[in-house]
């Protein structure tokens, strides 16, 4: 699988550089007081890297070629999930590094545990994006899957919104609930969902005709 990851890295470095640069800018914006909204952007941008690579692969029909190389379909799927995890980790590291730099510039350090928690939340957001989108991309391809990405994102957001409206009256209540969860619960749930997503993607890709 190493060859697949190296190939993806070459593609990302050339074609996805703009996304990496944007992630860096958003991370800086997030910690310089422009709001954590930008940190979320940064995380999702990095989480989008596997889809960007898959889109480029489709264009040159690399996936048809890769299947003829000594890789299993599982290897091909796994390589995209590894990039997802690396991308999400990179977003968190970027966020932590930017915050720590800002703390040292301002001369007052914040709560490091709280920072770690926020970084894990960011990572989970990126993982969640891929959890939903990668199986769709493996089923329909990135180009044909765009409509499905949009549709499923709308459904997930609407469903979450519905659940929130039904069970709570106060958004802060949810924020507080998440904040009070033990340190690693959210990332662990995210990784568990990502593992389920991987199994679904493998099953889809093993049945796909190339």
């Amino acid at each position, binding site marked *: 699988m190493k060859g697949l990851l190296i190939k993806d890295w070459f593609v990302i470095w050339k074609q996805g550089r703009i996304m990496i640069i944007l992630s860096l800018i958003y991370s800086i914006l997030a910690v310089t007081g422009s709001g954590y909204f930008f940190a979320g952007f940064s995380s999702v941008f990095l989480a989008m890297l596997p889809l960007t690579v898959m889109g480029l692969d489709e264009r*040159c*029909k*690399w996936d*048809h070629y890769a*299947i003829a190389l000594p890789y299993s379909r599982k290897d091909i799927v796994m390589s995209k999930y590894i990039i997802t995890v690396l991308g999400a980790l990179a977003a968190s590291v970027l966020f932590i590094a930017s915050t720590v730099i800002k703390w040292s510039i301002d001369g007052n350090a914040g709560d490091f545990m709280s920072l770690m928690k926020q970084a894990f939340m960011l990572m989970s957001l990126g993982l969640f994006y891929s959890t939903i989108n990668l199986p769709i991309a493996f089923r329909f391809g990135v180009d044909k899957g765009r409509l499905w990405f949009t549709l499923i994102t709308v459904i997930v957001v609407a469903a979450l919104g519905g659940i929130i409206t039904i069970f709570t009256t106060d958004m802060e209540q949810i924020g507080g609930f998440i904040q009070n969860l033990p340190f690693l619960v959210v990332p662990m749930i995210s990784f568990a969902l990502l593992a389920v997503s991987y199994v679904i993607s493998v099953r889809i890709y093993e049945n796909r*005709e190339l």
Partner: protein
Amino acid sequence: MNALVIKDLSKAYKGFKLDNISLTLPRGCIMGLIGENGAGKTTTIRLILNSRKRDSGSIEIFGEDNRINFKEKKEDMGVVLDEAYFPDNFTVKQVNVVMKSTYKRWNEELFYRYIDKLSLPHEKAFKEFSRGMKMKLSIAVALSHDAKLLLLDEATSGLDPIARDEILNIINDFTRDESNSVLISSHIVSDLEKICDYIAFLHKGRLVFCEEKDELLEKYGILKCSRADFEAVPPDAVKGVKENNYCIEALVERRRIPSVFSVERASIEDIIVFIAREGTGR
């Protein structure tokens, strides 16, 4: 041991069916898979590669079903596909780095020898390559990891005659090692006639024949005669007929033609064109 054995292979799509294909490629031989566009050549190769699922039949590579240990088997296979390429921004150097981590027996030195022999630039991006250069690069990759079986799908189509000749020579050299075999698909019959030991002719999803090239050339001939003379030709010796106002031209089985007739040598292209024409025209 045979390099490749296909038995009763079928695959149906909407509007097309690859119907009960059987063929055997012995080790050390080159087999040409010939057929018009849409005859089922690419489908056959994709089924061998397991990138599509067969409806029925079996495929054995080096004596084992291609669904068993296929990842390992692909180490012994070099593949060139018609329209599957490296990413646009890739250079020869990057291809080498990726393949070094892909094939256990990747031979970097041999790869660069092929690259130089085929006059491919090391630093130029793949998107700037001509089709001929792209095919040459794919062939260099296919030949640089000690493969025992080459699968080439339309590797020479769309190339100029010089590039085609270069590629055909390389393929020919590959089978000097008697354990190496090649299955090459093309609709350019003259290319395959030059290098193949066996010819498999696919037409509308069916295998019309799969025979040794020399036997085909021995078996068939072209008979040119008047309509009146043609009446004396045994009907079952005639495999295809072209007719014009002046004479009849027919593909015939040589040994069944009375010696009074003069039968010319038929090329593989003649054999295929005549047989592909529906009916004998008589």
